[in-house]
């Protein structure tokens, strides 16, 4: 399968043949009501993220020395259940590690994620969308976070950024989130069976791909600001 890593209009294939991401698109500031918003599309997977904050927070959720982060995950159909709550928690912990919450004590930052289309690698798309929406809202952050999903196929091949068909056929699906400064792992979520060696292999493949996403994020911000330069 031929896959490309897209940076806006110019398509550039990454070096490894199996380590290619689907086309990656990002649109910022597309909603008028929230303080920041972003739509990230990875292939056919599309997630819309909105950030409200730093704003008021319920008395019961107030933290005295930092901002309260809240993630609301809205699935495409139906009501959010247990799996969605787990997803919310994972996303909240990921965002908390990069947001400088101490700068806005006793306030709340709400992140709403609406799934528009799920064609595999949903979690990584959600993390990327949340990160771009946070940058757009200008909530102070330590650094950016970029996430990559990979699937270990039955025969042992690793596919980066799998679509839903590949995810179904695979023996394991792993998602890693990395910070943009030192490329350290922030979050790791896995499903299925894999060997420790495969895990390391996936980690290094995703780490390399996350650098591309980080540089794409920089270009996305540059494009957004290009009018003011």
């Amino acid at each position, binding site marked *: 399968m031929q896959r490309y890593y897209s940076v806006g209009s110019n398509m550039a294939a990454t070096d490894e043949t199996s380590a290619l991401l689907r086309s990656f698109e990002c649109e910022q500031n597309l909603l008028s009501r929230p303080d920041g918003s972003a739509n990230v599309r990875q292939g056919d997977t599309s997630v819309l993220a909105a950030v409200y904050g730093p*704003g008021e927070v319920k008395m019961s959720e107030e933290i005295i020395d930092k901002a309260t982060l809240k993630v609301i995950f809205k699935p495409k159909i139906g009501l959010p259940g247990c799996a969605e709550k787990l997803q919310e928690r994972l996303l909240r912990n990921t965002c908390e590690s990069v947001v400088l919450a101490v700068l806005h004590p006793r306030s709340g930052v709400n992140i709403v994620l609406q799934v528009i289309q799920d064609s595999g690698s949903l979690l990584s798309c959600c993390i990327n969308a949340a990160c771009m929406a946070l940058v757009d809202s200008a909530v102070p952050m330590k650094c950016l976070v970029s996430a990559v999903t990979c699937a270990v196929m039955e025969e042992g091949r690793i596919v980066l950024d799998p679509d839903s068909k590949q995810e179904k056929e695979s023996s394991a699906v792993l998602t890693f989130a990395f910070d943009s400064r030192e490329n350290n792992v922030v979050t790791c979520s896995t499903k299925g069976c894999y060997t420790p060696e495969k895990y390391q292999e996936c980690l290094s493949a995703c780490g390399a791909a996350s650098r591309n996403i980080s540089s794409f994020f920089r270009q996305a911000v540059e494009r957004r600001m290009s009018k003011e330069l």
Partner: protein
Amino acid sequence: MADSVGKVVIPGDILSEFRASEKTSKVALGPGLRQEGEEVLVTKGGILRHKEPNLYWIDCHQRRYIPAKGEDVIGIVTVKSGDVYRVDIGATQPATLSYLAFEGATKRNRPNVKVGDLVFAKLLVANKDMEPELVCIDSGGHSSGYGVIPADGGFMVHTSLNLVRKILSPNCDILKFLGKNVPFETAVGMNGRIWVKAKTPKDTIVVANAIASSEHMTNAQIRTMIRQLLDKLSGF
């Protein structure tokens, strides 16, 4: 560092080689920059700006207002409680405004402020750990332009904070050029709220629309846009 000024930076970028002022050998870091140990980090995505001699900050498109001491804001009075008014200024918390902080106000002579009124005020206290506090007088006790905005035909528009900074900068001539053609009154709050009032409601709408749509325009584009609006207004 000198080469990053005027360029886009993203959170996590490390900056170095700041130009310090010659007198004090200090560097002033504005919004979006933060010192962590020996390094200076960027915390917001935007354009790095520099002002002589030693001031650095990030210019970003933010919508949420973070109160800063001494800034002029437009607030909406939401609650009257005891001897203070609670005023919504678009920040995380409502600000307080003492009824004594008006020109000529005394314990016996309270100012006439109702819930829902707009006030143009200055931030006296703005601190991340404290409630913001507003005043409608200067240090000499005079109103100097602050106070309740009369509710007789004006209109308030919400814009981004970037637009407010833009129209207040001396390089931007939108207010001057508009004012030459349509006389109007205006109050510009740093919290992204702009109040305008012209002679007729029609003129007010034109002025408000012109200001709201000028965010991503250059001076030349603004002039063209205003000319087109004025042509429409006079019936061409």
